[in-house]
């Protein structure tokens, strides 16, 4: 039988850890007042990759709890399929109640209003991106402002069907040459070759909000209550959107509060 040498296993672990770290387990990043003073114009691109509200589904972790194994992994798949089926059945009437509600436009309006309160952010233009992925390269090349703020947002019903949840991943890239030295790692090879690479980010943060809408004994009852009053549901969506926009503005205001801020949350 072939045995993996210890060095190989260690190296594989290092590669996996580095890979996962590169995907998203990185700290947030803010810039100081000396940088925000230099930013005279910002274009904002808001992307909401999803088409409709989704239900959160808790992943099954039998394989993890049981120490691994193909059989437990297959049971996980079956459990997750069953949970996804239940979630889709319960959320269908909620989706129907919101079928004419335009989350993206409502978010754009709320963000536009809240960004007016961010003193240093001189917004030129706010663009809504209706696509499954934020095309950073294209928007970077077409933007004519000195910096570009990207807001990647999403929303869902929590797994217990009691609350609405919304979140946003915000990043800001410099377009003007004078701002480029203030990126996170402006001297890295990829930052120099790819202007829209995340190493050039001036700012980066995750924000999220959750608003309780109904209370039920179980998820069936909560889902039913949520869908039975479409007007209340739409109002709750607007509250969630407003809170998200406020959270985005609060996060942006952390820039410029002091010099050389770089926090780990």
């Amino acid at each position, binding site marked *: 039988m072939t045995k993996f040498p210890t060095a190989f296993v260690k190296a594989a672990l290092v590669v996996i850890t*580095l890979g996962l770290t590169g995907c998203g387990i990185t700290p947030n990043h803010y810039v100081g007042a000396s940088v925000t003073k230099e930013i005279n114009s910002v274009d904002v691109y808001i992307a909401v990759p999803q088409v409709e509200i*989704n239900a959160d589904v808790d992943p099954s972790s039998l394989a993890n709890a049981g120490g691994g194994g193909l059989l437990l992994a297959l049971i*996980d*798949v079956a459990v997750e399929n069953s949970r996804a089926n239940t979630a889709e059945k319960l959320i269908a009437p909620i*989706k*129907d109640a919101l079928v004419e509600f335009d989350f993206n436009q409502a978010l754009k309006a709320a963000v536009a209003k809240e960004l007016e309160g961010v003193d240093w952010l001189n917004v030129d233009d706010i663009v809504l991106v*209706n696509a*499954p*992925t934020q095309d950073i390269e294209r928007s970077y090349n077409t933007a004519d402002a000195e910096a570009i703020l990207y807001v990647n947002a999403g929303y869902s019903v929590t797994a217990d069907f009691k609350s609405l949840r919304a979140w946003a991943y915000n990043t800001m890239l410099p377009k003007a040459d004078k701002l480029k030295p203030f990126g996170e790692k402006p001297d890295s090879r990829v930052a120099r070759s790819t202007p829209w690479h995340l190493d050039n980010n001036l700012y980066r943060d995750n924000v999220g909000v959750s608003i309780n809408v109904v209370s039920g004994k179980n998820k069936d009852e909560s889902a039913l209550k949520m869908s039975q009053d479409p007007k209340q549901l739409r109002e709750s969506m607007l509250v969630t959107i407003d809170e998200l926009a406020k959270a985005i503005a609060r996060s942006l205001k952390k820039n410029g509060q002091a010099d050389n801020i770089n926090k780990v949350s």
Partner: protein
Amino acid sequence: MLAPTLMKKILLLLGIVMLSGCHYSPKLNIDNQFEARHSSRNAKHHMNITAQTCPYRLTEFKDARSNKSLGRVAFSVIENDVTQWSIDALKTFNIHPDVNREYLQVKVSLVKAYIHSVNTAMAANIVFKVEKKSPEVKAFDQPQYYRGYSVSTNWATGRGEILDTLNEAMTDAISKMRANLDRQCR
């Protein structure tokens, strides 16, 4: 024991896969051909509808989606000719642009059509907005929405399994639409 060269190759491959997974969004074009697929939860109901439907004239079809993508499964962005696929599906259920019916007519708008990942599963949703012309009123009614959905296990993000899931959601949506339209046929 594994040769050092092989180990290096495996590590390099692993590293590339892990790192590229963060940003890579390949486009996955799927077939436009509709094939009715009945889910276990409503197969009997659907089968009866398909067998008994009277023809309706499709006077107008509009792709009214604000987001023209079919969504994402894992890292893949799903695309196809949604208009052709939808009209094929409507024809299968006897809603046809070439049928000459004075009163049994419908205007159909596709409002939502997407698939997305849910952990190891994937869920598809199709929503139509339908205005029908009834013999009594001789004008188009208030629009009604019909939603179809389907959930299945995502084994390998393959074209076939994604299309099957979308076809099942489409079948579900049009079956519900036909169930209502058929009341005018009697």
